[in-house]
């Protein structure tokens, strides 16, 4: 009882803290000139800083009634900073939305895995995920409502512009929300009803798939509003009239943001679920409970890191398209006012990779037979930390005058060669390869004597062959398409090494398949890792520099080539690993629950880091517009139209993170109120 009172008290403090911490500013409502002409589109305001009409002292009520009402551009939130209010509410809404959209994706997958594999514990875990989901859903909707009212109340003119452009999609959004709500609650509450027969179970899974379709559609729809603000199209820049809703909706950054957020939501959901399991593990009173939550934490980390691996690729694509939409916005992002936020981002991403790997390495301790592979850990630690060091080296170091004089130029060689994108891409690919390697040795820990590939039957042959065809299609088709890129002859020269690299990798993938058929699967994996690291990390590190200074237009092709090569290695090696160790004798099983406590703190750290990361990236995505509501079209003329300092950003994002984690803890606590203690399913 006492504990519940304490939790309620903390929750109240959490809710009230923004009001206490935000700095108070005076209301200063600028007034725009009201347009007198009626037109199908909205005329943009003239951006001279208008002054509110001064009420004549002693004006009669009649005079006040006669006075024409001016259009309001901005309002304050009870005297508080409107921008900070919208910032906090929108970020909180987005974080909850990310959880609510990410979790159903893997909840349904876990349910299918449980049903197909006949293992009931997967089904129970999927249901537990969904329980958290339904608890978080109402909070997401409430925050969404609050955000909408804040935007309409505090930024009426901006929202007038947005509704003028996007009104039809807003109705669809509201309708989709009904679908999301009905399928979510239907999915959760029908879990035990739709059981027993295949038809019933698949009906239930279909509900989950529908829930994902509604959720993803919702997100895609709202993404278009946010990306329109960054890269507007389909409207007249001069008047703001809508010329094409389709182009405004399907603007330049829409799809990159969609893909990036879709993957990030899964990652976010996975790590939050992992932290939930960690907290439950730490509070577990029985061995059964410990085993269950240890396993749940492992799955959460697995999902988180599984989504984290492709995330940098999607992020890089988004970054490239920001440069394409506006080179200046790109420079502001990576080399200008926001460059230091990317150093912070690098630190956070490094922590995610290190934390997830650390958890895996600790997990090997509960598997008999892992001793054979722990010798690799020291090399993995070295590779990951060395890459992390390069990953966070800034291009432009803070130097004192004396240091600058000693170095004799603006760039120290470390920052010169480690600080640019070519180096960053190389090392992040290496970190991804190392993380994948950690996964492989974790998988193998419990596997003993293997069955030769020649005895794996048709499944093995079909599996390897399918992976080979898929990888070759990916590599060769891209290599062929590079022959037809439209570039000037002198720049197109720089594409040739990329084509050659793709063919070399294709050969390596083919050779790996051949060696696997010859019962040399492990050698095949080693060879493929080595070739991939040589091309995608070492060679492209050097070649990225070449291209950067002589043909920046080739960078986009280089990065896609790099991604394709790394992905082909991951896919081929994963499939080889599956079939090489298929039917292998188990060494001693996994002792779920036998995990050191620090591993659970690693899971909690991963959750906090991913929440901070999302808060930071939200600031960057929104802040890149600088003093524009809609970049280049609708200017922000409020008193908050400046880029906040890093320290101010840090304080606000820190507050958002604390609020979100506090709210999530409260919501999860509510979700578990009905549970009787000590009733965890036995695994």
């Amino acid at each position, binding site marked *: 009882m006492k504990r519940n009172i304490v939790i309620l008290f903390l929750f109240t403090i959490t809710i009230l803290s923004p009001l206490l911490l935000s700095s108070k500013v005076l209301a200063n409502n600028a007034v725009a000139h009201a347009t007198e002409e009626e037109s199908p589109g909205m005329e943009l305001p003239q951006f001279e800083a208008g002054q509110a009409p001064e009420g004549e002292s002693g004006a009669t009520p009649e005079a006040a009634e006669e006075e024409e009402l001016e259009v309001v551009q901005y309002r304050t939130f009870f005297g508080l900073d409107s921008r900070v209010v919208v910032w906090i509410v929108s970020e909180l809404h987005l974080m909850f939305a990310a959880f609510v959209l990410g979790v159903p994706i893997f909840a349904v997958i876990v349910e299918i895995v449980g049903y197909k594999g006949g293992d009931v514990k997967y089904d129970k875990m999927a249901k537990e995920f969904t329980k958290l989901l339904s608890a978080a859903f109402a909070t997401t909707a409430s925050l969404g409502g609050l955000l909408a009212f804040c935007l309409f109340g505090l930024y009426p003119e901006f929202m007038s512009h947005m509704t003028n452009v996007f009104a039809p999609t807003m109705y669809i959004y509201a309708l989709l929300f009904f679908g999301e709500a009905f399928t979510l609650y239907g999915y959760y509450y029908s879990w035990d009803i739709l059981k027993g027969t295949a038809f019933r179970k698949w009906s239930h899974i279909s509900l989950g798939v529908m829930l994902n379709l509604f959720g993803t559609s919702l997100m895609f729809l709202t993404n278009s509003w946010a990306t329109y603000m960054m890269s507007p199209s389909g409207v007249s820049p001069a008047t703001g009239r809508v010329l094409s809703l389709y182009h405004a909706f399907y603007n330049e950054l829409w799809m990159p943001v969609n893909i990036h957020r879709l993957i990030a939501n899964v990652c976010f959901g996975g790590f939050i679920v992992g932290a939930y399991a960690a907290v439950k593990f730490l509070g577990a009173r029985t061995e059964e409970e410990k085993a269950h939550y240890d396993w749940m934490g492992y799955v959460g980390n697995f999902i988180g890191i599984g989504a984290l691996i492709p995330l940098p690729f999607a992020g890089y694509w988004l970054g490239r398209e920001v440069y394409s939409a506006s080179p200046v916005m790109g420079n502001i992002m990576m080399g200008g006012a926001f460059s230091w936020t990317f150093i912070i981002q690098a630190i956070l991403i490094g922590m995610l990779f290190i934390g997830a790997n650390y958890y895996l390495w600790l997990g090997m301790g509960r598997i008999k037979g892992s001793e054979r592979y722990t010798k690799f850990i020291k090399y993995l630690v070295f590779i990951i930390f060395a890459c992390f060091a390069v990953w966070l080296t800034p291009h432009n170091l803070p130097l004192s005058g004396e240091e600058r004089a000693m170095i004799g130029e603006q760039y120290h*060689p470390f920052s010169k060669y480690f600080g640019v994108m070519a180096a960053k891409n190389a090392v992040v690919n290496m970190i991804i390869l190392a993380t994948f390697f950690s996964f492989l040795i974790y998988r193998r820990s419990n596997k003993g004597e293997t069955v030769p590939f020649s005895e794996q039957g048709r499944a093995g042959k079909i599996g390897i062959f399918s992976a080979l065809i898929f990888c070759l299609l990916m590599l060769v088709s891209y290599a062929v398409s590079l022959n037809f890129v439209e570039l000037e002859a002198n720049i197109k020269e720089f594409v040739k090494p990329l084509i050659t690299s793709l063919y070399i990798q294709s050969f390596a993938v083919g050779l790996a398949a051949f060696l696997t058929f010859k019962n040399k699967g492990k050698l095949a994996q080693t060879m493929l890792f080595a070739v991939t690291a040589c091309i995608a990390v070492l060679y492209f590190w050097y070649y990225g520099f070449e291209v950067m200074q*002589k043909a920046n237009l080739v960078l986009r092709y280089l990065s896609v080539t790099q991604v394709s090569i790394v992905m082909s290695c991951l896919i081929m090696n994963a499939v080889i690993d599956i079939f090489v160790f298929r039917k292998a004798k188990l060494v001693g099983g996994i002792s779920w629950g036998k995990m050191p406590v620090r591993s659970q703190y690693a899971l909690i750290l991963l959750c906090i880091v991913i929440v901070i990361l999302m808060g930071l990236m939200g600031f960057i995505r929104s802040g890149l517009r600088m003093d524009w509501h809609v970049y280049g079209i609708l200017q922000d003329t409020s008193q908050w139209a400046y880029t906040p300092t890093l320290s101010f950003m840090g304080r606000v994002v820190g507050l958002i993170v604390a609020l979100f984690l506090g709210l999530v803890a409260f919501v999860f606590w509510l979700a578990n109120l009905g549970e009787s203690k000590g009733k965890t399913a036995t695994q």
Partner: protein
Amino acid sequence: MANKRSTYLMMWMVFVVICVFLFLRYASPKIFQVLMAKGHPMPTPSTLMMWYMIMGVLAGLVYATTSNQKFADFLSFLLPEHGSLIKSFLQKVLFVTFPLIIGWFVYSWSIPGAASPVELRIQHPTLPQNYEKQENPFRQKDAETQRRCVEEGKILFQTYCRPCHGSKADGNGPFANSFRLRPINFQDPGTIATVVDNYLFWRIKEGAPGLPSESTPWDSAMPAWKDDLKDDEIWKIIMGEYDTAGVMPRQREKLE
């Protein structure tokens, strides 16, 4: 087969961290001096030194705690052990030097001294919106006109820019040594090759005055040329400058 236990794990960690420190402090300045054919060593900046050392220590601690057995081995070095003279000696060294190192850090941080402030710097100050829409009028002309503009630009560059930026656009002009902050080396692929050419148009027109303090390396002694040079001349200088430095401006990408 169980891995061999090592009660010297902590000392190995200490040894590795010391090696990282020695490499950054003494070896890398010399290596870069040779590799980059400089007349002086290239000392590792203090900020980078601190970051890399933190990474080294963290890596050691992460490795030492990857299993309970390793962690126990790591800590076991601190336990008394009879019979091993080497271990006993190393323990004493560790117990004496560790507090001394901490003390030295505290002393060097708190001792009064004069040093110029270390500031966060950004690579590219924000280009004003009205410059983003600017286009080089000569880039769309025929090849012959472009070639002529480049040649004219080179002459203008040698006339106005060479004293500081050097005849090869490498930042080694005759006046270069007289500045506390040396003029920028345009041959470096991390400088003008990473920006669109209208960014240079803004920099040449407005110069360094008025830029925020963190805008190094742009925040320099560069004057504003808008009163001395016409816009067309500036565009030609930009073309000549890129050609002299042997790099290309960032080109606008087409969305796919």
